[in-house]
């Protein structure tokens, strides 16, 4: 099962109104992307505290892509609150010796299929290069 090349697990937090249907659209187009990606459907990623991200890395998750609705969030103000939180997560990651590029905040819409695949590929390349979390 173990591949020669490290393919750490990438967690994707995808909003149910934007990025989740966007990922479905990628599927409908049969555009393949790396399989080390695990997509969790969320109402809004503003729900997750700083600790959640750090815990994920501690558990061995190699990269996290937050796919929000951006400023088109159905919850007015949530994107701004989320962005502020992520800004607070970065120094905490640094303190733990984690490369902050392992956590990425994006906005993906229901038909943003290319953007979805690009984000996934970039994170995949990054975690392959960095190796398991905490070893960079």
């Amino acid at each position, binding site marked *: 099962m173990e591949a020669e090349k490290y393919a750490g697990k990438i967690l994707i937090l995808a909003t149910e*109104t934007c990025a989740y*249907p966007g990922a479905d*659209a990628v599927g*409908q187009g049969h555009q393949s992307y790396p399989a080390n990606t695990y997509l969790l459907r969320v109402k809004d990623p503003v729900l997750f505290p700083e600790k959640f991200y750090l815990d994920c890395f501690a558990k061995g998750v190699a990269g996290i892509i937050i796919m929000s609705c951006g400023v*088109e969030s159905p919850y007015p103000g949530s994107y701004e609150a989320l962005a502020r939180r992520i800004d607070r997560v970065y120094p905490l990651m640094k303190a733990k010796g984690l490369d902050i590029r392992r956590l990425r905040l994006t906005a993906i819409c*229901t*038909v943003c*299929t*290319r953007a979805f695949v690009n984000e996934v590929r970039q994170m995949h390349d990054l975690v392959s290069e960095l190796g398991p979390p905490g070893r960079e």
Partner: protein
Amino acid sequence: MGVQQNLKFDALVLGGGIAGLEAALNLAEQDFSVAVVEKDASIGGKMIRLSKVFPTLDCSSCITTPKMAAAAHHPKVTLLTYCELQSLERRGDELVALITQKPRYVDLEKCIGCRQCEYQCPVLVPDAEQGGLAARKAIYIPFSNAIPQKALIDPENCILCGRCEKVCPTQAVDFFQKVEDFTLTAATAVIATGFEMMPLEDKVQYGQGQIPDVITALQMERLLAPHGPYNRVLRPYDGKEPDSVAFIQCAGSRDQSMGVPYCSRVCCMYAIKQAMLLSGSLPLADLTVYYLDIRAFGKGYEQFFQNAQAMGVNFVKGKVAYVEPGEGGAVRLRYESQEAEGGVQVVEHDLVVLSLGLLPGWTPGASCALSTGADNFIKTVKPKLAPALTELSGVFVAGAASGPKDIVDSIVEAGAAAMEACRYLAARGFKAAG
């Protein structure tokens, strides 16, 4: 062929575009049963086919799909797609519609939308959903976010090779499906039949569709859509990125010679929007809009127009008289300038978009006792106090069926039409079955 069955609803909504869906959902939210009769194989109307929408630049699919899904899942809403209205008449307290179910040649109940048939089908046909700029198969799901996600066969192009039938895991393909007529009775109806864009072929002065790099605004929508035919903006003639793009406004509107003296109301804003989106995808391209009057009248529209000017989109006051092929795929325009020295100017652009006017999506003709205005759109009888009221008691109209209208105005009107229909039902003792 005999009439197969009779369906009964509180309300009939004719047209499953954004206005029809909004009207249906509003009726259903008051617990009235609603049938949505849609001529296409998917609901969603014109809006689901757009890239982004003005003035917010929201992705159109992201705004349309929630309403499409809400209608599809609502227990009080029944979607009847790929159905053509034959007649609609009042019989006493009831409206009786005779409807034809066109054959999909695929069993709607059995099909699971897996597209195996589509992959196996050897026939390639220009895909109208992509403005004819990409291909589809002879058996196909209309487009990626179609509802229902069910296949249909295009009998004009099917070669009856049977591969789809063999590969279908649910035996849903049925080459022997027939046209079926049925009647549908309802107490009230909302006409939301929308618009069609004027055919490119109609405008002699603009090349009648024979110049490859003269395209329609709907084709430009597809070029700009993230899931469009090329995944980026290329001109059809040689697949090059255009360095200069022109928009010709009032192409077939405000034009007596075309029989369309009215303003089509949305073209200014969609052209400005397309120019803005192009300035994002082709940052170096020159973008020019040739116009008579910019009609940016809705909420936030004028500010949107001012932003486009600030972003460097050129707005040239002048009526384009003639469009002809230029060198190497270029398009030559002759226009009467209202600026600087004026006079007739000749310019070349790599790609020209015609902001074509809007025509009615449906005209009742003999099928129904509704009449139309001089503009051929459904006539309303009380445009000030009750804009949804038609000549026929219990029949209301919403959206572009009663004249060109943008999405916001169509949605608001659909709410008003649904309100009229609800109170019409309430006055006739219809109790919402809540």
